[in-house]
């Protein structure tokens, strides 16, 4: 009897194996890249109901973050300013600008503004703003250069691994508490960030939870 399979079938297995390897590699690479907060979160930039520009307020006008996010030093939560806060200035400045129509409506009707949330801590993680800003972690470390953003976007991945980067080496990120809201701060003089940070870690006895899951997960 003759051969069951044609000649070319001898190469088939190799080809199949090759395809499978490529496919598998491709899939894992895709998962690795796309299902990663680095991709999923960073750059998330939803349109806001009111075209509020941090660039103008925090950048050009050089307003301090804490003017609006007033509780960041006392509360776990960095609050979104009330309409009241907007109106403090905008009852005088640009009182008629159509951009601010929603704000004025809200002020008159009492119906709150609905801002789209950009940075969201997972529900099982408890991030505490005040303990960070009071211990020399700058806004910029997590939120990026908001003072240069017209529309706020997600600047960092906010993944657990990312949190741990800082919790493991705080020296690379800490700065004097006074400079926390200064998003453009650079290490002063001849000192590097690491030297400054190391000094602060030593003086303040900084030891963020690393092994202690309960530090963030309760």
């Amino acid at each position: 009897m003759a051969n069951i399979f044609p000649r070319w079938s001898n190469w088939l297995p190799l080809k199949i194996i090759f395809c499978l390897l490529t496919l598998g590699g491709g899939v894992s690479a895709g998962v690795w890249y796309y299902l990663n907060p680095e991709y999923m979160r960073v750059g998330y930039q939803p349109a806001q109901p009111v075209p509020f520009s941090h660039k103008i307020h925090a950048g050009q006008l050089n307003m301090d973050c804490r003017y609006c996010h007033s509780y960041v030093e006392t509360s776990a939560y960095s609050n979104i300013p009330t309409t009241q806060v907007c109106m403090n200035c905008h009852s005088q400045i640009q009182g008629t600008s159509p951009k601010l129509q929603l704000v004025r409506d809200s002020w008159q009707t009492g119906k709150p503004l609905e801002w789209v949330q950009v940075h969201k801590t997972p529900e099982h993680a408890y991030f505490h703003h005040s303990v960070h800003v009071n211990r020399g972690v700058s806004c910029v470390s997590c939120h990026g250069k908001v003072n240069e953003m017209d529309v706020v976007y997600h600047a960092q991945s906010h993944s657990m691994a990312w949190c741990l980067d800082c919790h493991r080496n705080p020296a690379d990120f800490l700065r004097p508490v006074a400079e926390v809201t200064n998003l453009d701060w650079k290490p002063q003089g001849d000192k590097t960030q690491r030297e400054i940070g190391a000094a602060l870690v030593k003086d303040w006895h900084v030891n963020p939870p690393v092994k202690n899951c309960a530090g963030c997960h309760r």
Partner: protein
Amino acid sequence: MSKRVFQHPAEAQTGKRYWRSLGQLQDTPEFRTWLHREFPQGASEVEGNDVSRRGFLQLMGASVALAGLSLSACRRPMKYLVPFTKGVEWSVPGKALFFTSAMPSRTGAMPLVVTTFDGRPTKVEGNPMHPVNKGTTDIWAQSSVLDLYDPQRSQSVLSSGKKSDLAAFDTELAALLNTAGDGAGLAFLADGSVSPTAERLRHLILAKYPKAVWASYEPNGHELENAAVAAAFGADLEAVPRLDRADIVLTVDRDILGVEGEISSVRGFAAKRKVDGPKSKMNRLYVVENRYTLTGGMSDHRLRLPASRAGAFLKALATELAKLSGDAGLASLASSFKAPETKFKDKWVEETAADLWAHKGGALVLAGRRQPIAVQALSFAINASLGALGKTLELRKSATAPTVGIAALAETLKKGHTNALFILGANPIFNAPADIRWTEAQAAAKNVIHIGMEVSETGAKSNWHVPSAHYLEQWDDARASDGSYMVVQPVILPLYNGVSVNELLAKIAGVEADPMDLVRQTFLAVSGKKGDITADWVDTLKSGYTKGSAAKPVVATLQAASVAKVLAEAPVLTGADKDFELVFITDSKVDDGRYANNGWLQELPDPVTKLTWDNAALISPAAATKLGVHTGDVLKLTVGDKSLEIAALILPGHADTSISVAVGYGRTEVGSLGRNVGVDVFPLLTSTESRFRVGVTAVKTGKKHALAVTQEHGALEGRGADLTRQATVAEWTEKADDKTFFKKMGIDAHAPENFSLYSHPPLDDVHAWGMTVDLNSCIGCAACMTACQAENNIPIVGKEQVINGREMHWMRTDRYFASEGGDVDEPEMVSQPLMCQQCENAPCETVCPVNATVHSEDGLNVMAYNRCIGTRYCANNCPFKVRRFNFFDYNERSITSLYRWNMISEKGMADSLQMQKNPNVTVRMRGVMEKCTFCVQRIQEAKIAAKVHASDSAGQTTQPRVPADVFTSACAQVCPTDAITFGDIRNPESKISKLKDDQRGYRLLEYLNTENRVWYLARIRNPNPKMPDAARAGSASKGGHGHSEKHESAHTPNGGHA
């Protein structure tokens, strides 16, 4: 959650401000932590409907699933941040605010501090400044928060069953009052917790309508006691036991440490029970009772006696005392009292009498509130002759003027002249004594207006039902059990448009004032001051009560004549010899049924029987053998022409000819949780001389009823010396210098020294958290369990799941019956709170395949819920079985739909219940293991507060450290006897760092080398050496085999499901 919540009641803000300033002003540790305490994720700013913290794991699951479908789906679903339009004063998103308040109750209101997050009260704690409770509370206060958010509360005015509104009611009310004239046609029925303001309005009303009838009724109230006091000492007085002064206490059928005592009594007793060495003085407790109660559990000597024989016992005691004291008056009183002939354990009465007499002035005898007036009067006579009056037994004027009883009111109503009957909170149709036939009486009234938090059986049969506000929603005032005046502040606007009783009364009285002014006027009257009282008012709101307003004791002497009269006229108890007696006991959870729809309370195991979601006929093992029943067999109880069927529950230590049943179950007009739970025994209750009935016959019906008992096994199996270590004062004195006396008991006595091949990785945090539990002062009241449930968002699982053994309580109070030689008739009862022992070498950690439970540097066995995949291996390897697994999605599924296919059954939790959840604690989903974490959320908040406080201040020698004892765990905070102590064992100033090295300190299963962080302080018994049964004290820990085998059923009430 509804937006209303965030509009803080304007009035409340004053309270807020003062309270807050008080925080800075009064620098007590509690306040410092409270002020420092903060929490993430201002719930107010995440959109109302988004309750993602509840369903967070599902969300994660969802996003993972979506990821597979399309990459765009990887972006998180759009969420909105909704800030206030105008900032709310004092409200900082994510920070707690605290208000003083008080929980009204017939036994004296509970002084409270209410925790609110973004305008939502989430937890109550005792008011640490109030002398009565010093920051502690009880199960009812703890679970009252759940009542507030109960989605099945009455939510609208009902006009003869149909939905109506307040306006309509007001016009109707006006019409009624116009025709009221002198009030001849008006009648009022109030419940026992009458506030001073209500009392004031009552007088105004009676002034306006002099002929109106005002009655009050509490099914578990003090009517008999008041009558007895009146007989013994004169009218409108009340007798206050001072256990904090008593060295020898004898309770006769009186659960003074349980449901028949106030928190002041409990704390007083505990104060006398605290010991720091064999030398320290300790009180002695004699208990005579028909069933095991918490009091009996704490007793040094216990006599098992049917309630109907309490009189006989007191008679015998009085006779003995009369002999010793030569008090002829007492002798004659005793002899004039005709009690059935009874035989007591030899020398029991004699020795007890001798001991009491020996401690003349420091002795106290208490008779049960259910006992006939004569018996209670006799007990007062005995106290008088023991010189207790003004010392261990104080008398004071009662705050409320006397009223007619419900029976009298029923008679009036039946005459049919009543035009309008106002029922204020009471629920007589359900819980009035059967023989007064209240239903007919109520029907005889032309208009019945019922105000209450739930429609209830009574509201359903009334022409008008008005939803009343929860005490956290209304301005009111109250008196603590020491009589001090407290203001009840609203911390949230009424969720369901409830009206406070005061507002209603004000309308009737024609008083025009807003609710706060009503209270302020009362305050003015109470303070007895003239002119501007703002300062005092402010001070009262600050501290939660008016200082120096406690009731003053009055000097009173025994009115022998009237007592003699009462005793002589007392009917002789007949039929007590044959059949059983039936004792109506106050339920330790739902009280008279008012808390029937509170899931926390329904699921809370009864401290003694460990029964949940039910009531049962408690009988002794001997009686069970006689009747041929086991736990779960349904009995038919017949007394007179009435009878009912109820499941039997065998309780060791119960009197053989006695049956005890808890009232308050079997409600029909109530939310779904409480409906038809248990059996209604009120039909057997009559307004007779006493709250027990004799001549009851019990027969086995052959039916079965599954009882949900959380502790299947009550015997110690000879492990008493390992688990619950005890010693008598004598034994302890002998070993006073032996540091290892309590540490080397049971298996630890001969187990070799532990040593490990490994060196423990450094637990190098500045803190090291630990806990001690003083078994000597723990009465086993289970308040800690409720506090834990409220603090840690612990779900309820329902009766069926409890039967399956899946209750979720993170901590439990174990209750053991044990005695040498396995005597089930008169065993000892030992309670032991058991929470996660936070082993330094935690066996649960190494077996977890995904590192979901690991150890923190400050010595906690922490649990990362979102990492857990639910293998349950950790729970298996836990020697204490304190880990709890979410077998179902208890937070997302109603307890009735657990077995319906997930994809087709409804999900989600009522908004109002979501509002109750503690935003600092993750709500766990199904398939996740959970456990006690020493309230790690409080620990973290405290650490964070310390770090924030430290900020960049230079020159710190260590890392920021939480000051000693500035905060504590929920269970330690609530504990009425301060038996639980939590703190930093590494901080030399902390209480615990000393307590844990106490000679009595020992750790469970030391030989396993788990290095527990929980120390138990051994229990010390103080028996009277002369007593016949002195030797039995502490026998539970003498290593004898717990119970005899043949009586296994006795402590395996739930043995049904193997």
